């Protein structure tokens, strides 16, 4: 294998692909990036056996071939190459079992990893193939992703349930403490549809790939246990999560005692300020009285804070506690517009919705106070 490419291109593509490379596998090749050069196309590939990514590299191929190089090291090399050299060349030296990287006067020899340990990556396509607008898709991911669980002992909850059909795109995520549902109405109906529980990690990667390629559409191929996203020239694939995603509709209460319309940015600012004093797992307290909400927090040995906010509350005063981070995540996703805050009682879930139908619903479980 021998090729030359622009140093800036190589760096940009390596930055994207190397994030996927495994950092802790016993198989060394998985910590590598595979460089595959054919006459028609050069591709950089990485995988951790769950998520895989292939990105194209614009290059001049002098000799075809495939090598696997340590991802981290290659990235560090690419990052440090002299700015004055605009072209970098990579050449496999089979006898030395290394790759010579030359840019300007700088020359590196990087030992290759065992190419035969690097698995073949999924090809695009699938049983169902749907093309979706990239902007709407990644915005929907961004709205719900924080609610996905990071607790590997509950694999089902580490995914985002993605459903696409007709004019509707819906994503659902929950870590059992809060639940996010975002329904996005597409400008034009989709051809075909699918539903799949995709690891949140893979979708976060997809967001950054879309960001770096600037692609306008994503072609999604779904198979029995795999999903493949084609974005620009890049191909991101992921295994799907087995098992039944919780029936989220059952979790949403049908009726609430209180329904308050509040300006999202105002509540967001207050919550952000007062949260500073909710440390070491201390809850954020929301006390509702006539026409007023007081947000307060107290951490033993640190201090306390409180701030009132006028809200259209009427009825028996009550106080409810929330994890400050969870509440802020929900408010961040709503953004600046008006929101509806719906509550039942101190121990029942609260619900935050975009008031002017942004199609976003955030269910949040309280923290039991006064124990």
């Amino acid at each position, binding site marked *: 294998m021998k090729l030359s490419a622009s140093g800036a291109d190589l760096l940009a593509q390596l930055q994207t692909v190397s994030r996927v490379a495994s950092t*802790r596998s*016993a198989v060394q090749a998985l910590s590598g990036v595979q460089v595959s050069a054919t006459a028609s196309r050069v591709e950089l590939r990485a995988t951790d056996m769950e998520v895989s990514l292939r990105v194209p590299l614009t290059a001049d191929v002098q000799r075809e071939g495939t090598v696997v190089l340590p991802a981290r090291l290659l990235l560090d090399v690419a990052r440090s190459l002299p700015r004055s050299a605009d072209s970098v060349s990579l050449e496999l030296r089979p006898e030395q079992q290394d790759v010579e990287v030359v840019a300007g006067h700088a020359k590196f020899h990087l030992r290759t990893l065992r190419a035969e340990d690097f698995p073949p990556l999924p090809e695009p396509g699938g049983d169902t193939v749907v093309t979706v607008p990239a902007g709407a898709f990644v915005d929907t991911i961004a709205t719900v992703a924080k609610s996905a*669980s990071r*607790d*590997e*002992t509950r694999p089902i*909850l580490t995914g985002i349930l993605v459903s696409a059909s007709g004019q509707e795109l819906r994503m659902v995520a*929950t*870590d*059992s*403490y809060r*639940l996010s549902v975002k329904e996005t109405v597409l400008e034009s109906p989709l051809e075909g549809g699918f539903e799949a529980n995709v690891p949140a990690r893979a979708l976060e990667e997809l967001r950054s790939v879309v960001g770096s390629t600037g692609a306008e559409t994503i072609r999604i191929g779904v198979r029995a246990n795999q999903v493949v996203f084609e974005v620009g020239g890049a191909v991101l694939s992921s295994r799907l999560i087995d098992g039944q995603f*919780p029936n989220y509709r059952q*979790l949403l209460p049908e009726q609430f005692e209180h329904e308050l319309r509040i300006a999202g940015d105002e509540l967001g600012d207050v919550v952000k300020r007062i949260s500073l004093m909710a440390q*070491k*797992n*201390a*809850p954020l307290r929301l006390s509702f009285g006539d026409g007023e909400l007081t947000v307060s927090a107290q951490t*033993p*040995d640190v201090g306390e804070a409180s701030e009132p906010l006028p809200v259209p509350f009427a009825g028996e005063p009550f106080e409810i506690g929330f*994890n400050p981070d969870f509440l802020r995540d929900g408010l961040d996703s709503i953004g600046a517009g008006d929101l509806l805050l719906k509550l039942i009682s101190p*121990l029942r*879930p609260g619900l935050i919705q975009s008031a002017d139908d942004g199609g976003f619903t955030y*269910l949040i*479980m*309280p*923290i*039991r*106070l006064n*124990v």
Partner: protein
Amino acid sequence: MAKRVIAHLDCDAFYVSVELLRRPELVGLPVIVSGSGPRAVVTTASYEARKFGVGSAMATAEARRRCPQAVLIPPDFPAYREASRAVWELVRAELPVVQQLGLDEAYADLSSLERPLPALRELLARVKAETGIQISAGIAPNRLVAKIASDLGKPAGFVAIGREDCARRLADRSPRIVPGIGPKTAARLAEMGYPTLGSLQEAPVEELQERFGTNYGRDLHRRAHLHDETPVSASTGPAKSRSNETTFDTDIADHAELEAVLRKLAAGLCEGLVKKDVRGRTVRIKVRLDDWTTVTRARTIEQPTNEVEVVTAIAVELLRAYAPPRPVRLLGVGMAAFGERDAPPVRQLALPV
């Protein structure tokens, strides 16, 4: 700040001393307290055994080679804990601030005593009379010098020394004499042209920082001059982690066998956690291969636990994911990220999912 008077108190050959108290016929003989497996190490050697070059942490096999006539006694930790409690209870009753480290040493802050040296001398004599344990003491303006001083007079030492005096006295010794400067650092220092503490004191701090990083470089410079402001704190707070590990008599390559050992270790760990009523969120395994490569893997879960099923499942999964590529010499499992004791109990409710 008023001048500090800090004492480092260190029991002489503690385990051996406890053994000799119940087996007086061994007094005067070389005695080694150690396990008996092929990889056992010496925990303590009597001063008679030390004359043969036997020291703590030396492989027992090596110790026997150096001193074949030594009497080998298996460790009896409950007895040592009992003796330790008796010793430090006496010390605590007399001295204002005592910070115990392990079973056989402690720091004490004597700054508030009117006549610290006679008081301490009297106390140590009483400890010796009532428990039979001899404590060596180093008395100095800070912990670092006190620690060095307690070692200078051993056994039955009582050394009071100032910082500058101590630095002068140790000037031609290796920097290793200072706690916190290990063999690797000492070797690097020697390469840089600082083979002695005296020469290291002349080293510009910038050069040390260049070689050892900003923080450790500065720390080395301060240590070389025997500066230390660490206070003696009466309690060190609750443990931050607990672990249970074992070194095999012969290396184990079989993954199933390793898993069985790991399950036992996890069960032992959880038993201890349940007894102390602590729960942690981070389960960690430690694997040392036959080539001494040491690997740790950890996973943090959201809810603190000490349930043996949960901990075992995670530990086994971590081991399977790592799949040791070579025979394993040491295997361990640990728990960290304990719930903060003072934090209010959190009652985060969850959805029924």
